[in-house]
């Protein structure tokens, strides 16, 4: 791995961790409801720097985030890890299949959907083991996930556009100087 890539991963992971921590402090009407702001960073990394960077950032965020909040290797860590890995993989696979079909918004929604699906499956398999409870709660989670995924996608879209614009501006300036 190049030195440049290491810096990139470190900075993006720091952003993702900061958003992760910020999100934990937001008041929420339902305790397990989360906006998934860190997914903005994952999505940006995926689209700009590729799948490996995005996966690395997700893993760093989940592991360090759980260490900071004191839930490392606990049940919520397992759910978080499964959801994060599955969400990132689904976005990566979708991007690999076609670059034109889905924009950032669509990818974000897919990521949120698979994140939730993986968490529901893990929760059923490891903790709840009552299919009707999972079936009852899953439409609500998927609906909320779609809405937050949509908003995250729009934010990621704006972020990516601004980053690309800045990069091309700086390249332009270098060329002029």
């Amino acid at each position: 791995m190049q030195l440049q890539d290491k810096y990139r991963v470190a900075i993006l992971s720091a952003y993702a961790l900061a958003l992760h921590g910020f999100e934990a402090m937001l008041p929420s009407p339902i305790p397990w409801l989360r906006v998934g702001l860190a997914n903005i960073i994952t999505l940006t990394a995926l689209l700009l720097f590729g799948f490996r960077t995005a996966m690395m950032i997700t893993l760093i965020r989940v592991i360090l985030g759980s260490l900071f909040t004191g839930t490392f290797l606990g049940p919520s860590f397992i759910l978080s890890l499964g959801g994060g890995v599955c969400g990132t993989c689904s976005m990566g696979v979708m991007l690999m299949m076609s670059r034109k079909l889905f924009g950032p918004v669509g990818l974000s929604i897919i990521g949120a959907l698979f994140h939730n699906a993986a968490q529901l499956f893990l929760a059923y398999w490891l903790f709840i083991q009552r299919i009707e409870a999972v079936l009852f709660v899953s439409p609500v989670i998927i609906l909320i996930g779609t809405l937050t995924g949509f908003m995250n996608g729009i934010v990621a879209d704006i972020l990516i556009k601004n980053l690309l614009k800045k990069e091309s501006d700086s390249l332009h300036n270098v060329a002029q100087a």
Partner: protein
Amino acid sequence: MKKALRSTTIADRTLCIVLIIVSCAAMFYSREALSQGTDVVIEVSGKAVYTTSLDTNREIPVEGTQGRAIVEIRDGKVRMKEARCDNHICLKQGWITQGTIVCLPNSIVIITGSGSKKDVDAITG
């Protein structure tokens, strides 16, 4: 914001709308299909001795601390049918679909509806 909205592809929008419609439909459907699955928990001296559903009509004999009591479940409702105690507050409460019936002399508690459910098992991060 507007620019970002305009830059979404057709697949993005279709996916978003389809997911919203499907999840809304599933929400209404699941509420209707699963709303009868309410639990009844009968506790004696703080320990759950019976956990059953409101769906099946039945009478359950429960050994309280002062003798046998009978809990009846019928048509999605539950009541204390018989109990050996002095004041019979539990009997006077009648049929309930949600909440608790307490027979203090017998240390019997019947919990049903949202009182017996704990939806949150973990908070994920």
